[in-house]
Each structure stands twice: as C-alpha cells, then as structure tokens.
C-alpha cells in the first residue's frame, strides 16, 4: 500500500517524526557563574599592591626610585642594616622591576684602594634605612655608569669624600 502510494506520503511521515523528535529534546539549563574575585582586578596588580603594603607601608622606598624625583646614578647613598652595619657608595645603576619587588641599586666604592661593588635589593626587610648623602652638581652621561670602572672618571674613596663634605659644612656654619 505504501509502496504504491505517492512520495508525498513518505515525506510527510518523515517530517512528522522529525518534528516529534525536535519537540521532545530537552536542552540543559545553564546556571550563572560565580562572582568575580578581587572586584575583577588583575592578579599581578593585586598581589603587587599587597606586597608594597607589607614591605613599604610609608612609601619611602618607592619614592627613592622615582624616575624624576628620586635617585640618579652618580648620587652618594648610605645603607644601614638592622644590625647597624653601614655601606656607603656612589650609585652606578638602578635596576627596576615590573609589578614585583625586584628593584635593586648597584653602588661602588674604593676601600683601601680596592674597588668594591654591591648590588642591594631595595625592599629587603633587613634594610633599616637608605639615605641620600650627596647629589653632584653635574652628572655624567648615561644612566648606567658601568663604563667608569678603571678609568679617570672612576669613584674614589667615598667615605672620606663624605667626611670632608661634612667638615666643610661645619666650617661654613
């Protein structure tokens, strides 16, 4: 009966089945997502702010390495540690980190005519204070002064230089 019948009937049967299947298909429900953490703030910025609040609550160290108002290579600084030991030297280079506490300062002096350098991490909790002792009137070119090592522009004994400066100030007063 079906075979002899026209193809219209066949297609109608298929259509009915398709329609039937389509109606019965249950689509799953989609739930809402969780609330965004840190008010949608990027992770690295959030962590950097927390670390700054922990290691530099007053903001003195971040002021020191400000590109416009802070340190410049050629200045003389004194670093005092928590166990009262001191290091005095002139700044050769400042390395800055991006969204981390990886900043450090390279300072150089001559102790008993031997050039000695130390690269000091800025935010180390062992450091008590960093003080600027002297700023020269005229700076040498470049921000990284590696080229002065062993030339006539090299730093001298920085400690005696600072003592002489202080003595001069006292005399003026």
């Amino acid at each position: 009966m079906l075979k002899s019948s026209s193809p219209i009937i066949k297609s109608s049967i298929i259509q009915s089945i398709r329609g039937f299947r389509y109606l019965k298909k249950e689509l799953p429900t989609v739930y809402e997502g969780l609330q965004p953490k840190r008010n949608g703030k990027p992770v690295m910025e959030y962590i950097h702010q927390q670390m700054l609040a922990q290691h530099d609550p007053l903001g003195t160290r971040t002021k020191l390495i400000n590109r416009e108002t802070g340190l410049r290579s050629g200045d003389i600084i004194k670093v005092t540690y928590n166990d009262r030991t001191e290091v005095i030297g002139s700044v050769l280079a400042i390395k800055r980190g991006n969204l981390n506490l990886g900043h450090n300062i390279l300072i150089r002096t001559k102790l008993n005519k031997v050039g000695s350098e130390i690269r000091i991490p800025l935010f180390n909790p062992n450091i008590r204070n960093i003080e600027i002792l002297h700023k020269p009137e005229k700076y040498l070119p470049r921000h990284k002064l590696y080229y002065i090592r062993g030339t006539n522009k090299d730093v001298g004994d920085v400690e005696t230089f600072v003592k002489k400066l202080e003595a001069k100030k006292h005399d003026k007063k």
Partner: protein
Amino acid sequence: MIYLKTLLNVIDNSGAQVVECIKVLRHKPKSFGKIGDQITCVVKQARPQLDSFQNTQSNKVKRRDIVRGVIVRQKAPFRRKDGSVVRFDDNAVVLINKNGDPLGTRISSVVAKELKELNYNKIVSLAPKTF
C-alpha cells in the same frame, strides 16, 4: 672564578706579591674556586729579601715556593642569601699554613664577609675592613 694558571694578588706581609694557582683543593677538575676556597699556588713574584744581619725582618716565602692560600676577594660577582650581589676589582689571596693560620702578621686591604662564616676568624680580625 679561579682556575689553574690564574694570577692572584697576595695581601699579607709574608713576602709574596703575586702567586699563580696550580690547584683548587677539594674541587672537581673542571669547577672553579671562589671566596673561602683553599688553593695551592706558586710564588711568581716576591719582595726582595733584605740582609738578615742588617734587618731582622725576613720574608717567609721566596720566588718559586709552593704555598697554600685562601681566596679572600674575587672579580666574578657572587650572590648572598639576602639577594645582594658583591664583586671586587681583583682576585686576592692570603697565604696560610696547613692548620689554616695566616703566615703573615698583617693584612693590607679588605676581605669578604663570607670568611667569618667559614671560620677564618684570624684573617677577619687582622683585616682592616670587611665588605
């Protein structure tokens, strides 16, 4: 980084001025010596010896002697645990005997702080400064 054939300054009054490293002790053949390591070395340049009749002070070592020493300064930067990195302008050594005591009685310039942790207290106390 002190290997075979490295020339080092001597900073005590034992009489030697420049020594050449011939062996870094207690190290693998290809690894280098650093601050606090003991080396054996040959005296390449020594202070001229004075007549013993005229002057009582005499040099303890002379040229071509084989001596032992401790590295006290190095040119290659090295890292401390607090994150600071230190380097000096030259490689320097203090001559010692087999017990670890210095041969000379005076040290002329700075030494590294690490020597104190390695129990070279005599060298540290003789030195004018530590860095």
